[in-house]
Protein backbone atom coordinates (compact mmCIF):
# COMPACT_ATOMS: atom_id res chain seq x y z
CA UNK A 1 0.00 0.00 0.00
CA UNK A 2 2.89 2.36 0.69
CA UNK A 3 5.34 3.49 -1.91
CA UNK A 4 8.56 3.26 0.14
CA UNK A 5 11.02 5.85 -1.14
CA UNK A 6 13.47 5.39 1.73
CA UNK A 7 13.58 2.49 4.15
CA UNK A 8 13.19 2.80 7.91
CA UNK A 9 13.70 0.40 10.82
CA UNK A 10 10.22 0.97 12.24
CA UNK A 11 6.93 2.48 11.12
CA UNK A 12 8.27 6.03 11.35
CA UNK A 13 10.66 7.61 8.86
CA UNK A 14 14.13 8.52 10.17
CA UNK A 15 14.24 11.91 8.49
CA UNK A 16 11.38 13.96 9.92
CA UNK A 17 11.68 17.71 10.29
CA UNK A 18 10.95 17.76 14.04
CA UNK A 19 13.62 19.81 15.84
CA UNK A 20 16.78 18.04 17.01
CA UNK A 21 16.12 16.49 20.42
CA UNK A 22 12.31 16.66 20.09
CA UNK A 23 10.52 14.61 22.77
CA UNK A 24 7.51 14.14 20.54
CA UNK A 25 9.60 12.30 17.94
CA UNK A 26 10.82 9.79 20.53
CA UNK A 27 7.27 9.33 21.85
CA UNK A 28 5.56 8.67 18.52
CA UNK A 29 8.19 6.04 17.65
CA UNK A 30 7.64 4.22 20.94
CA UNK A 31 3.86 4.43 20.65
CA UNK A 32 3.79 2.98 17.13
CA UNK A 33 6.31 0.29 18.05
CA UNK A 34 3.67 -1.07 20.43
CA UNK A 35 0.55 -0.43 18.32
CA UNK A 36 2.00 -1.89 15.12
CA UNK A 37 0.86 -1.69 11.52
CA UNK A 38 -2.80 -2.38 12.15
CA UNK A 39 -3.39 1.21 13.26
CA UNK A 40 -5.00 4.29 11.73
CA UNK A 41 -3.94 7.69 12.98
CA UNK A 42 -5.66 11.07 13.12
CA UNK A 43 -3.39 14.03 13.72
CA UNK A 44 -4.55 17.63 14.08
CA UNK A 45 -2.44 20.63 13.05
CA UNK A 46 0.57 21.05 15.35
CA UNK A 47 4.10 19.67 15.51
CA UNK A 48 2.83 16.08 15.22
CA UNK A 49 1.47 16.95 11.78
CA UNK A 50 5.10 16.77 10.61
CA UNK A 51 4.60 13.00 10.76
CA UNK A 52 1.46 12.67 8.65
CA UNK A 53 3.31 14.42 5.91
CA UNK A 54 2.62 16.97 3.29
CA UNK A 55 0.62 16.32 0.11
CA UNK A 56 0.98 12.67 -0.79
CA UNK A 57 4.18 12.19 1.20
CA UNK A 58 4.09 10.79 4.71
CA UNK A 59 6.56 9.87 7.45
CA UNK A 60 4.39 6.98 8.73
CA UNK A 61 3.82 3.51 7.31
CA UNK A 62 0.26 3.49 8.63
CA UNK A 63 -2.87 5.08 7.22
CA UNK A 64 -3.98 8.41 8.54
CA UNK A 65 -4.59 12.04 7.84
CA UNK A 66 -4.44 15.51 9.31
CA UNK A 67 -7.78 16.74 10.60
CA UNK A 68 -8.57 19.99 12.39
CA UNK A 69 -7.67 21.33 15.79
CA UNK A 70 -11.29 21.18 16.93
CA UNK A 71 -12.26 17.62 16.17
CA UNK A 72 -9.50 15.00 16.37
CA UNK A 73 -11.58 12.84 18.71
CA UNK A 74 -14.70 13.15 16.54
CA UNK A 75 -12.81 12.10 13.40
CA UNK A 76 -11.31 9.15 15.24
CA UNK A 77 -14.68 8.11 16.65
CA UNK A 78 -16.19 8.26 13.15
CA UNK A 79 -13.42 6.14 11.67
CA UNK A 80 -13.90 3.58 14.44
CA UNK A 81 -17.65 3.49 13.79
CA UNK A 82 -16.99 3.02 10.07
CA UNK A 83 -14.60 0.14 10.74
CA UNK A 84 -17.12 -1.52 13.03
CA UNK A 85 -19.80 -1.23 10.34
CA UNK A 86 -17.44 -3.11 8.04
CA UNK A 87 -17.00 -5.81 10.65
CA UNK A 88 -13.44 -4.77 11.45
CA UNK A 89 -12.87 -5.12 15.19
CA UNK A 90 -9.09 -5.31 15.13
CA UNK A 91 -7.72 -2.02 13.78
CA UNK A 92 -6.63 0.45 16.47
CA UNK A 93 -7.76 4.00 15.86
CA UNK A 94 -5.25 6.42 17.34
CA UNK A 95 -5.87 10.11 17.87
CA UNK A 96 -2.54 11.83 18.43
CA UNK A 97 -2.95 15.45 19.43
CA UNK A 98 -1.07 18.25 21.15
CA UNK A 99 -2.10 20.07 24.31
CA UNK A 100 -3.69 22.98 22.44
CA UNK A 101 -5.60 20.51 20.28
CA UNK A 102 -6.73 18.59 23.36
CA UNK A 103 -7.17 20.87 26.36
CA UNK A 104 -8.32 24.00 24.54
CA UNK A 105 -9.60 23.70 21.01
CA UNK A 106 -10.66 20.04 20.86
CA UNK A 107 -11.90 19.53 24.42
CA UNK A 108 -15.59 19.31 23.43
CA UNK A 109 -14.95 16.62 20.86
CA UNK A 110 -12.81 14.63 23.30
CA UNK A 111 -15.52 14.93 25.95
CA UNK A 112 -18.13 13.63 23.50
CA UNK A 113 -15.94 10.72 22.45
CA UNK A 114 -15.49 9.56 26.04
CA UNK A 115 -19.12 10.08 26.99
CA UNK A 116 -20.29 7.98 24.03
CA UNK A 117 -17.84 5.24 24.94
CA UNK A 118 -16.13 5.17 21.54
CA UNK A 119 -13.25 2.73 21.41
CA UNK A 120 -10.49 5.15 20.46
CA UNK A 121 -6.98 5.46 21.83
CA UNK A 122 -6.50 9.17 22.37
CA UNK A 123 -2.98 10.39 23.09
CA UNK A 124 -2.25 13.93 24.13
CA UNK A 125 1.46 14.64 23.77
CA UNK A 126 1.88 17.66 25.95
CA UNK A 127 4.66 20.10 25.08
CA UNK A 128 2.82 22.65 27.22
CA UNK A 129 2.19 25.35 24.61
CA UNK A 130 1.16 25.94 20.98
CA UNK A 131 4.62 25.15 19.66
CA UNK A 132 4.04 24.81 15.95
CA UNK A 133 2.72 28.36 15.63
CA UNK A 134 5.44 29.97 17.74
CA UNK A 135 5.18 29.04 21.44
CA UNK A 136 1.87 30.63 22.45
CA UNK A 137 0.59 29.68 25.90
CA UNK A 138 -2.14 27.02 26.20
CA UNK A 139 -4.31 26.02 29.15
CA UNK A 140 -1.76 23.28 29.76
CA UNK A 141 1.17 25.67 30.03
CA UNK A 142 2.37 25.33 33.63
CA UNK A 143 2.27 28.25 36.02
CA UNK A 144 5.40 30.39 35.81
CA UNK A 145 6.40 29.35 32.28
CA UNK A 146 7.19 32.10 29.83
CA UNK A 147 5.67 31.84 26.33
CA UNK A 148 5.15 34.47 23.64
CA UNK A 149 1.66 35.17 25.04
CA UNK A 150 2.74 34.93 28.70
CA UNK A 151 6.10 36.71 28.46
CA UNK A 152 6.25 37.43 32.19
CA UNK A 153 5.40 33.82 33.06
CA UNK A 154 1.91 32.28 33.11
CA UNK A 155 0.04 33.48 36.19
CA UNK A 156 -2.53 30.67 36.47
CA UNK A 157 -2.03 26.93 37.07
CA UNK A 158 -2.61 24.50 34.21
CA UNK A 159 -5.83 22.60 33.51
CA UNK A 160 -5.76 19.02 34.69
CA UNK A 161 -6.56 16.70 31.76
CA UNK A 162 -6.54 13.56 33.90
CA UNK A 163 -9.15 14.93 36.29
CA UNK A 164 -11.30 16.01 33.34
CA UNK A 165 -11.29 12.58 31.71
CA UNK A 166 -11.70 10.76 35.04
CA UNK A 167 -14.80 12.90 35.66
CA UNK A 168 -16.21 11.16 32.53
CA UNK A 169 -15.68 7.75 34.22
CA UNK A 170 -13.31 6.77 31.42
CA UNK A 171 -12.32 3.06 31.46
CA UNK A 172 -8.58 3.76 31.21
CA UNK A 173 -6.46 6.89 31.48
CA UNK A 174 -2.80 7.34 32.36
CA UNK A 175 0.00 9.83 32.39
CA UNK A 176 3.37 8.84 30.94
CA UNK A 177 6.77 10.31 30.19
CA UNK A 178 9.85 9.56 28.08
CA UNK A 179 11.62 9.45 31.46
CA UNK A 180 10.32 5.88 31.74
CA UNK A 181 9.84 4.31 28.31
CA UNK A 182 9.02 0.85 29.69
CA UNK A 183 6.15 2.32 31.73
CA UNK A 184 5.03 4.37 28.69
CA UNK A 185 4.95 1.30 26.45
CA UNK A 186 3.09 -0.79 29.03
CA UNK A 187 0.43 1.92 29.21
CA UNK A 188 0.12 2.13 25.41
CA UNK A 189 -0.47 -1.63 25.34
CA UNK A 190 -3.02 -1.42 28.12
CA UNK A 191 -4.82 1.48 26.41
CA UNK A 192 -4.90 -0.44 23.12
CA UNK A 193 -6.51 -3.41 24.84
CA UNK A 194 -9.11 -1.33 26.66
CA UNK A 195 -12.65 -2.02 25.52
CA UNK A 196 -13.73 1.60 25.25
CA UNK A 197 -12.11 5.00 25.21
CA UNK A 198 -8.61 5.38 26.61
CA UNK A 199 -6.58 8.54 27.11
CA UNK A 200 -2.83 8.83 27.60
CA UNK A 201 -1.37 12.15 28.66
CA UNK A 202 2.33 12.16 27.81
CA UNK A 203 4.83 14.74 28.99
CA UNK A 204 6.76 15.99 25.96
CA UNK A 205 9.93 18.02 26.50
CA UNK A 206 10.45 20.52 23.69
CA UNK A 207 13.94 22.05 23.45
CA UNK A 208 12.74 24.85 21.17
CA UNK A 209 9.78 25.99 23.25
CA UNK A 210 11.18 25.36 26.71
CA UNK A 211 14.60 26.79 25.89
CA UNK A 212 17.05 24.05 26.77
CA UNK A 213 19.84 22.32 24.86
CA UNK A 214 18.47 19.45 22.68
CA UNK A 215 20.75 16.93 24.39
CA UNK A 216 18.90 17.46 27.71
CA UNK A 217 15.47 16.11 26.70
CA UNK A 218 15.67 12.92 28.75
CA UNK A 219 17.39 14.59 31.69
CA UNK A 220 14.56 17.12 31.84
CA UNK A 221 11.80 14.55 31.64
CA UNK A 222 13.45 12.66 34.51
CA UNK A 223 13.74 15.86 36.54
CA UNK A 224 10.03 16.50 35.95
CA UNK A 225 9.13 13.08 37.34
CA UNK A 226 11.58 13.28 40.26
CA UNK A 227 10.21 16.65 41.36
CA UNK A 228 6.55 15.81 40.80
CA UNK A 229 6.21 18.54 38.16
CA UNK A 230 4.93 15.54 36.14
CA UNK A 231 3.36 12.67 38.10
CA UNK A 232 3.12 9.15 36.75
CA UNK A 233 -0.21 7.51 37.56
CA UNK A 234 -3.06 5.62 35.95
CA UNK A 235 -6.79 5.23 36.39
CA UNK A 236 -7.98 1.76 35.51
CA UNK A 237 -11.70 0.97 35.76
CA UNK A 238 -12.23 3.19 38.76
CA UNK A 239 -8.96 2.43 40.52
CA UNK A 240 -6.24 5.02 40.84
CA UNK A 241 -2.64 3.88 40.98
CA UNK A 242 0.47 6.00 41.42
CA UNK A 243 3.27 4.42 39.37
CA UNK A 244 6.20 6.35 40.79
CA UNK A 245 6.32 6.99 44.51
CA UNK A 246 9.66 8.36 45.69
CA UNK A 247 10.08 8.71 49.47
CA UNK A 248 10.21 12.45 48.94
CA UNK A 249 9.90 14.59 45.85
CA UNK A 250 12.89 16.70 44.87
CA UNK A 251 12.43 20.51 45.04
CA UNK A 252 10.66 21.69 41.87
CA UNK A 253 13.30 24.42 41.44
CA UNK A 254 15.71 21.68 40.28
CA UNK A 255 13.43 21.08 37.30
CA UNK A 256 12.84 24.77 36.61
CA UNK A 257 16.49 25.76 36.57
CA UNK A 258 17.21 23.46 33.61
CA UNK A 259 14.92 25.48 31.32
CA UNK A 260 14.98 29.01 29.93
CA UNK A 261 11.19 29.36 30.11
CA UNK A 262 11.35 29.55 33.92
CA UNK A 263 14.33 31.91 33.96
CA UNK A 264 12.49 34.84 35.54
CA UNK A 265 10.29 32.95 37.98
CA UNK A 266 10.24 34.45 41.49
CA UNK A 267 11.12 32.49 44.60
CA UNK A 268 7.67 33.26 45.94
CA UNK A 269 6.03 31.70 42.91
CA UNK A 270 8.26 28.64 43.16
CA UNK A 271 7.02 28.16 46.75
CA UNK A 272 3.38 28.40 45.67
CA UNK A 273 3.94 25.84 42.89
CA UNK A 274 5.82 23.59 45.31
CA UNK A 275 2.87 23.65 47.70
CA UNK A 276 0.46 22.80 44.88
CA UNK A 277 2.65 19.87 43.85
CA UNK A 278 2.91 18.55 47.40
CA UNK A 279 -0.83 18.68 48.00
CA UNK A 280 -1.67 17.11 44.63
CA UNK A 281 0.82 14.30 45.20
CA UNK A 282 -0.61 13.57 48.65
CA UNK A 283 -4.12 13.63 47.20
CA UNK A 284 -3.09 11.05 44.61
CA UNK A 285 -1.41 8.84 47.21
CA UNK A 286 -4.53 8.97 49.39
CA UNK A 287 -6.80 8.25 46.42
CA UNK A 288 -4.83 5.20 45.31
Amino acid at each position, binding site marked *: *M*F*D*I*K*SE*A*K*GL*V*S*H*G*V*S*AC*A*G*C*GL*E*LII*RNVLEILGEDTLIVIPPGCSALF*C*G*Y*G*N*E*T*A*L*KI*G*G*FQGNLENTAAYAAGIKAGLEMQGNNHTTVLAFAGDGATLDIGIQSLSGMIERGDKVLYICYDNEAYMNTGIQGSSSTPQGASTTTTPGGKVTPRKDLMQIVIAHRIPYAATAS*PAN*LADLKRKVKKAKETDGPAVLHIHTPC*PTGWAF*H*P*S*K*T*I*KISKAAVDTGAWMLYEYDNGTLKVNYKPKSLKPVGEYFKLQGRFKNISQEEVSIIQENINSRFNELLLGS
Partner: protein
Amino acid sequence: MLRMQMQQEKHMKKQKKYRVLGPMASVFESMKTGSWRLERPKVEFSQCSKCGTCERYCPANVITIHKEKEECVQFIWDYCKGCGICANVCPKDCISMVDERGEE
Protein backbone atom coordinates in the same frame (compact mmCIF):
# COMPACT_ATOMS: atom_id res chain seq x y z
CA MET B 1 -36.13 16.25 10.47
CA LEU B 2 -36.71 14.71 7.08
CA ARG B 3 -37.13 18.15 5.57
CA MET B 4 -33.83 19.26 7.00
CA GLN B 5 -32.15 16.21 5.58
CA MET B 6 -33.62 16.88 2.14
CA GLN B 7 -32.42 20.45 2.27
CA GLN B 8 -28.90 19.18 2.81
CA GLU B 9 -29.16 16.59 0.08
CA LYS B 10 -30.26 19.22 -2.42
CA HIS B 11 -26.91 20.97 -2.02
CA MET B 12 -24.93 17.79 -1.87
CA LYS B 13 -26.36 16.54 -5.15
CA LYS B 14 -25.25 19.73 -6.86
CA GLN B 15 -21.63 19.13 -5.88
CA LYS B 16 -19.23 17.76 -8.46
CA LYS B 17 -18.11 14.20 -7.82
CA TYR B 18 -14.43 13.36 -7.84
CA ARG B 19 -12.78 9.99 -7.62
CA VAL B 20 -10.02 10.50 -5.14
CA LEU B 21 -7.62 8.19 -3.40
CA GLY B 22 -7.14 9.92 -0.18
CA PRO B 23 -6.94 12.30 1.64
CA MET B 24 -4.41 9.70 2.80
CA ALA B 25 -0.74 10.17 1.88
CA SER B 26 0.94 6.97 0.72
CA VAL B 27 4.45 7.89 -0.38
CA PHE B 28 6.81 7.05 2.51
CA GLU B 29 9.63 9.59 2.41
CA SER B 30 12.50 10.78 4.60
CA MET B 31 14.25 14.11 4.66
CA LYS B 32 18.06 14.07 4.83
CA THR B 33 18.09 15.61 8.29
CA GLY B 34 21.77 14.65 8.68
CA SER B 35 22.54 17.93 6.90
CA TRP B 36 21.35 19.82 10.01
CA ARG B 37 24.15 18.41 12.10
CA LEU B 38 26.65 20.78 13.69
CA GLU B 39 28.17 18.14 15.95
CA ARG B 40 28.29 14.38 15.60
CA PRO B 41 28.44 11.62 18.22
CA LYS B 42 31.77 9.79 18.43
CA VAL B 43 31.98 6.55 20.40
CA GLU B 44 34.94 5.28 22.37
CA PHE B 45 34.18 1.69 21.39
CA SER B 46 36.56 0.12 23.90
CA GLN B 47 34.54 1.66 26.77
CA CYS B 48 31.09 0.71 25.41
CA SER B 49 29.15 -1.93 27.37
CA LYS B 50 26.66 -2.44 24.48
CA CYS B 51 23.81 -1.68 26.88
CA GLY B 52 21.64 -0.11 24.16
CA THR B 53 20.61 2.98 26.15
CA CYS B 54 21.67 5.34 23.35
CA GLU B 55 19.71 3.27 20.82
CA ARG B 56 16.58 3.40 22.98
CA TYR B 57 16.57 7.17 23.45
CA CYS B 58 17.65 8.41 20.02
CA PRO B 59 14.62 10.40 18.78
CA ALA B 60 15.56 9.73 15.15
CA ASN B 61 16.03 5.99 15.76
CA VAL B 62 19.31 5.98 13.84
CA ILE B 63 21.46 3.93 16.23
CA THR B 64 21.99 0.16 15.96
CA ILE B 65 24.07 -1.88 18.41
CA HIS B 66 26.15 -4.67 16.90
CA LYS B 67 27.26 -6.85 19.77
CA GLU B 68 29.70 -8.86 17.65
CA LYS B 69 31.46 -6.00 15.89
CA GLU B 70 34.36 -3.97 17.18
CA GLU B 71 32.63 -0.77 16.05
CA CYS B 72 29.59 -1.84 18.04
CA VAL B 73 27.51 1.37 17.81
CA GLN B 74 26.42 2.24 14.29
CA PHE B 75 24.74 5.49 13.21
CA ILE B 76 22.77 6.33 10.06
CA TRP B 77 24.54 9.58 9.17
CA ASP B 78 21.97 10.58 6.55
CA TYR B 79 19.50 11.29 9.36
CA CYS B 80 21.34 11.84 12.68
CA LYS B 81 20.49 15.43 13.67
CA GLY B 82 23.37 15.75 16.11
CA CYS B 83 21.08 16.46 19.08
CA GLY B 84 23.48 14.88 21.58
CA ILE B 85 20.88 12.88 23.51
CA CYS B 86 22.84 9.64 22.97
CA ALA B 87 25.94 11.23 24.53
CA ASN B 88 23.86 12.59 27.39
CA VAL B 89 22.19 9.29 28.35
CA CYS B 90 25.17 6.93 27.91
CA PRO B 91 25.86 5.41 31.35
CA LYS B 92 29.51 4.75 30.39
CA ASP B 93 30.03 8.31 29.19
CA CYS B 94 31.74 6.92 26.13
CA ILE B 95 30.03 9.10 23.50
CA SER B 96 31.37 12.58 22.90
CA MET B 97 30.00 15.19 20.52
CA VAL B 98 32.64 16.41 18.09
CA ASP B 99 32.54 19.24 15.58
CA GLU B 100 30.92 18.03 12.36
CA ARG B 101 33.61 19.68 10.23
CA GLY B 102 36.51 19.23 12.61
CA GLU B 103 36.98 15.51 11.97
CA GLU B 104 37.34 13.85 8.63
